[in-house]
């Protein structure tokens, strides 16, 4: 009863207690235009500091779009409105005027890069030997060549790549280089033309909340409540590493006033298990590792032609957006979806509904729902709730919803988050989630209820230091509870030097002891000089039956290095990047791992990159 009274109290009196000031209302009702390509310029103008830029980059990488005042405030963890108000006049959306195409691309006009990863070396019997798997049919080097050219509003890009162990050239049906893409992309976003975007070749689409169509892979659930909202970027050219999740064909985005119409089609050969190998009526797309090294992997390469057609419409009003999408995926399934985002005073609503039907299936059409609400009680206090339901046989091959299972089906879940800015430097975040996975016949998934709680304490000084301490408790009904503790501290030692310390502790409640890791990295990243480098070193203890750990470390210029840490060992990574002249850039990196206890032993892997920019 008390709880109901409390909820009633919050719902009834919350809005009246949290009336915004006049300046806030003004800012709220004007759209903010902040896009990823502007971030570097914002840094140069000292509008945002390094940490703020990093926060924004992470937000954009998750598909986020800054569209209003509160979002920006939430992301930058500012407790007072004064700092934001200083930036607001510079971020407000300018009136719609024709801007020449040349100004859109701030990047160089031509860029090409060649990356090579040498075969890894293993230490066996006190001798270093190259790691060569005799089952692999190709050379043990990973190669990638990528280029990009910009002219007026056009961008052309292409790439050729092969993974370690893959043949350089494939014979027979769908032969050629293992992975190749080419894209021609027209971007008229800043102009008044009807054709906003047009793409031929490889492209990506992000739509709605990711229930129906979101070709890029997501970053999972976030503790930051504003990042629960997926803000789609729509149609984008593609030149990424992922060999599976992209479209290939033609797409056009037409825009008039605040309305947009997107028409797209994709025809592509995708990896699949041959029909002879499966009893399933539906064609099996389950093979998606992207590797084609052995005979059996090559047998699955480009075995199925995938046809996708779709049409989508959306309307972007200042504080309300909605969209509809119809999708037909080969002869496998079709789906219809609607999504919306609505901002009203301190309330921010969003959601998506999709109905999917398997073409030859016996199941009735399956629903997927997604509802979210963010409520800004006060600039210092925010609350969010996110409800999801994915029917047991819901199918969407290019979806990327918030989910415990990557397929995004057969799940009911509720996330509640609370964020409080305790002081100008300290913020507290609480996230609670309860998710149920239903019993599904002929499936590896069984009925389970998962309770996940996380408490995060964030410290952020104005320019120098940030720290994050996270406690987590995950309790699946079918298994033992896992307690976690993680801290991350980043210190700007100097304008050029950065120190990062990360520690993690995981404990299974039924096993004595705990898994742990500690990693320190030092980074030299001057803004004006051509040399950049990073050294990162860490160690871990995760003996079975203790839970294994995962390490996700970003290595300068190379990307995120993910490792499963099991046993006892240590690792050292280094990267050096050198801008040789105005046009040439060279980079080398090396990753050294040593497992003292358990499988693996010592291993070293090196790679290089050569880039030319005009």
């Amino acid at each position, binding site marked *: 009863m008390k709880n109901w009274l409390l909820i009633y109290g919050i719902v009834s009196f919350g809005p009246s207690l949290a009336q915004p000031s006049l300046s806030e209302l003004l800012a709220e009702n004007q759209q903010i235009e902040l896009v990823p390509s502007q971030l570097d310029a914002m840094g140069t103008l000292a509008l945002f500091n390094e940490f703020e830029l990093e926060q924004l980059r992470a937000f954009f990488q998750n598909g986020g779009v800054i569209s209003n005042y509160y979002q920006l405030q939430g992301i930058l963890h500012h407790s007072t409105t004064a700092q934001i108000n200083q930036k607001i006049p510079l971020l407000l959306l300018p009136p719609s005027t024709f801007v020449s195409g040349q100004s859109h691309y701030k990047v160089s006009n031509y860029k090409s890069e060649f990356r090579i990863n040498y075969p890894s070396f293993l230490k066996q019997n006190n001798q270093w030997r190259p790691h060569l798997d005799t089952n692999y049919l190709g050379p043990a080097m990973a190669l990638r060549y990528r280029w990009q050219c910009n002219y007026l509003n056009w961008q052309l890009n292409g790439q050729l790549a092969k993974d370690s162990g893959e043949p350089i050239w494939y014979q027979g049906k769908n032969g050629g280089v293992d992975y190749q893409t080419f894209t021609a992309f027209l971007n008229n976003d800043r102009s008044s033309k009807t054709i906003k975007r047009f793409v031929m070749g490889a492209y990506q689409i992000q739509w709605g909340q990711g229930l129906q169509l979101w070709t890029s892979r997501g970053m999972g659930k976030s503790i930051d409540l504003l990042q629960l909202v997926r803000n789609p970027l729509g149609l984008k050219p593609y030149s990424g590493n992922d060999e599976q999740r992209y479209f290939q064909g033609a797409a056009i985005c037409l825009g008039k006033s605040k309305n947009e119409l997107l028409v797209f089609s994709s025809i592509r050969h995708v990896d699949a298990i041959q029909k002879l190998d499966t009893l399933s009526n539906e064609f099996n797309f389950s093979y998606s590792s992207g590797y084609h090294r052995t005979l059996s992997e090559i047998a699955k390469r480009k075995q199925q032609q995938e046809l996708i057609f779709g049409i989508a419409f959306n309307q972007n009003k200042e504080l309300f957006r909605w969209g509809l999408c119809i999708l037909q995926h080969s002869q496998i399934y079709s789906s219809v979806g609607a999504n919306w985002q609505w901002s009203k005073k301190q309330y921010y609503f969003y959601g998506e509904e999709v109905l999917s039907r398997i073409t030859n299936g016996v199941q009735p059409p399956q629903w997927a729902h997604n509802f979210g609400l963010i409520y800004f009680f006060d600039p210092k206090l925010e609350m969010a709730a996110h409800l999801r339901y994915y029917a047991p046989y819901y199918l969407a091959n290019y979806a990327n919803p918030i989910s415990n299972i990557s397929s995004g089906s057969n799940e009911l879940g509720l996330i509640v988050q609370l964020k409080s800015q305790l002081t100008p430097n300290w913020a507290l975040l609480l996230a609670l989630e309860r998710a149920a996975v239903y019993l599904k016949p002929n499936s590896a998934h069984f009925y389970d209820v998962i309770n996940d709680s996380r408490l995060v304490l964030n410290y952020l000084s104005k320019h120098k230091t940030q720290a994050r301490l996270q406690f987590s408790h995950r309790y699946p009904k079918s298994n033992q509870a896992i307690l976690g503790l993680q801290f991350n501290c980043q210190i700007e030692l100097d304008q050029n030097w950065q*120190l990062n*310390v990360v520690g993690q502790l995981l404990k299974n409640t039924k096993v004595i002891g705990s898994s742990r890791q500690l990693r320190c990295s030092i980074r030299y990243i001057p803004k004006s000089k051509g040399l950049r480098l990073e050294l990162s070193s860490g160690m871990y203890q995760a003996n079975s039956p203790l839970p294994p750990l995962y390490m996700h470390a970003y290595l300068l210029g190379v990307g995120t290095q993910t490792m499963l840490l099991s046993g006892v060992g240590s690792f*050292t990574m280094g990267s050096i990047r050198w801008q040789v002249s105005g046009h040439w850039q060279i980079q080398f990196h090396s990753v050294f791992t*040593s497992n003292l206890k358990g499988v693996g032993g010592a291993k070293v892997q090196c790679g290089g990159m050569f880039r030319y920019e005009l």
Partner: protein
Amino acid sequence: MPLRSFMFFLILLLPTLLLSQVYWPLASWNSFVALNAQKKNVQWANPAAFSIDDKKGCSIETVLPLSIPNLLGIRVKNHFAKANISYHQDLSLLLCESFIQGGFSNAIALAINQNFKMGLALQTKFLQQPQYYGNFFTALGRLGLQYQMNKAHYLSMVLDDIAPKQMQIIRIEHLWCMQQNLHFAQGLQWCPSSSPQIYLSIQQSIKDYHLQFGLGIPMQSFEVAVSHKLKSSWEWTIMPTWRQGIGYLVQFQLSR
């Protein structure tokens, strides 16, 4: 402000308190509370830790483990600094009836700016034990950083014993200068083959005397050190120490 910074470091080290479970056998006999340099050069522990006030100096120290008969350790250290660069070298010998263990280390540090120093050391170690295992020789690297966050707070990090065998140790230490003559330090050191170790230390200076008390937690080691600076610019230090698994040690140091 200092209290807030202290709380920040307490939170940083809080998880590591939970990690600390068993004794980590230190290979070095020196006091481990020495990763941050204020007025004295401590590059033997952290290659980055030097002070421009301590331009040159040398020291000799001995260690005598009371519970291990016929064992004596000797270390000779020497350093000099010019502008924003400091060079340090030390030679150590552990003498026993059955073996000789020695090490020679060279460290160079660079002050990147007023608050941030960085250092690199190369160390060679040898073990001579002809009657049992023969001779053993190895070369190790060491990377150190020292950062002064503000007037009262220092932070250090050292990657120690970097070698192809990957037996490295990570050391992190925070020093809080509560008053001009009263300092508190907390630190963590971890080698992957054993559990992490936490330590706390408090140091006080009274005129020419310097007192230091250190404690490894949970109770794995403690140390008490007394130093006295003579008028002749020489300084002597005596430091009784107890360590789990080794027992009592007495260290004596003479430096200038």
